[in-house]
């Protein structure tokens, strides 16, 4: 599983970081950044999906 954030769509709700703080962080403007390069480890995949389903802007893209 890989994950990315569509920068233009992200408006900094930080719901992703609340759901999966190991996977998502924030830049100095409060917009999301992905903290993990490459594959999301198995133990964080459920949390990552949860983050996706909590983003009000649908800015998170998961590719399996």
């Amino acid at each position, binding site marked *: 599983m890989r994950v990315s954030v569509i920068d233009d769509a992200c408006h*900094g709700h930080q719901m992703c*970081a609340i759901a999966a703080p190991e996977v998502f962080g924030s*830049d*100095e*403007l*409060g917009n999301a950044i992905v903290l993990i390069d490459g594959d999301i480890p198995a133990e964080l995949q459920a949390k990552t999906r949860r983050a996706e*389903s*909590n*983003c*009000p802007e649908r800015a998170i893209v998961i590719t399996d």
Partner: protein
Amino acid sequence: MTEVRKPVEDLLTDYDIFEPEFVKDPYPSFSEIRESKCPIARTERYEGSWLPTRYEDVVAIAQEYETFTSRGILVVPPFPGQGEGAYGGVTAPPITSDPPDHHWHRRLILPVFSPQSVAKFEQGTRDLCNALIDEVIDKGTADAAADYAQHIPVRVIATLLGVPLEMESDFTAWVRAALENIMDAEGRKWARKNIIEFFLAQVEDRKQNPREDDFITELMNTEVEGKVVPIEYVLGVCNLMLVAGVDTTWSAIGSCMWHMAQHPEHRKQLRENPNLWPTAIEELLRMYAPVTMARIVDHDIEFQGCPMKAGDRVLMAFPAANRDPRQFENPDEVILDREHNRHVAFGSGIHRCAGSNLARLEVRVALQTWLERIPEFELVDKTDVTWAGGQVHGPRKCLVKF
């Protein structure tokens, strides 16, 4: 508000957001409209407005900033003469700005509100909450709204802005006039005058006595494309910080306190599983979203079958969107560990609340501190709670005993 209120004949064509029952509990009306054949209601009251109630529609309107502009964001029309005279050009950027200016208006303030930046307010907020609890803890009773919630955001914002905390009661009075008793146009005018004069004096003072590490000073010195920002921008941002950061967060804290007073099972759940706090706060914000914003239609358009005209006001009922069963399972139930929660209490799109990380922190610390010191409490009288509504919804009197 002394005139006799015309009774509402039909919610779909004549809703009244200031009708006392609606102010107290707008949710039954929202669902009646949402589930009707016409989920975007219309009223001619207060110079007319539209009221979308479905999640999908509210979010679509928030995203379409070219059609639905932020020229007017209050749920009522501007007061006569607003925008005239010296400093008449002071608005409330970025909330009142449209692109392209909105971009830099917002960008300049975002760094102050990133999760990293607001973390430094946590200890101060906790100390403040503890001091407020010290005042009431031996009495066995308190007004969770007026003795507690009301005092927290205003002091946090005053600290952030670097303005005198002793003026708390003035700030609160101005904010209530600007956002809460908004039927009273004279009151809004009075608040605006006071707020602008106050911040003008603060700016002058900083010119005479420069300060280090100070929000207003940094704002005054900011350059955009080689020029320092205009004074109207500085005053406008300060105006917005005060107005947007106080009533909203206080209402959210108040509603959460009102909820916790009635739900011992949720107090217990949080005590047993403190990791739940961040998710729980989002769920409470979904359930008790305090803020409704407006938009002004730019050009004639048919939106979901509604013939909207240029200049029409549209109320973005985020509280209604947050209870749409199409988006949320069991929407009227608080589920502290709700799995899927794309709530829009903070709005959606380019204007989404810039202060949300601070707001969340304040709500969480206020609840945590209270529950640590007063783990068991209940409402004195369920029927004796009073509410503010319209633009901002939350309890104003909420007696609890412990």
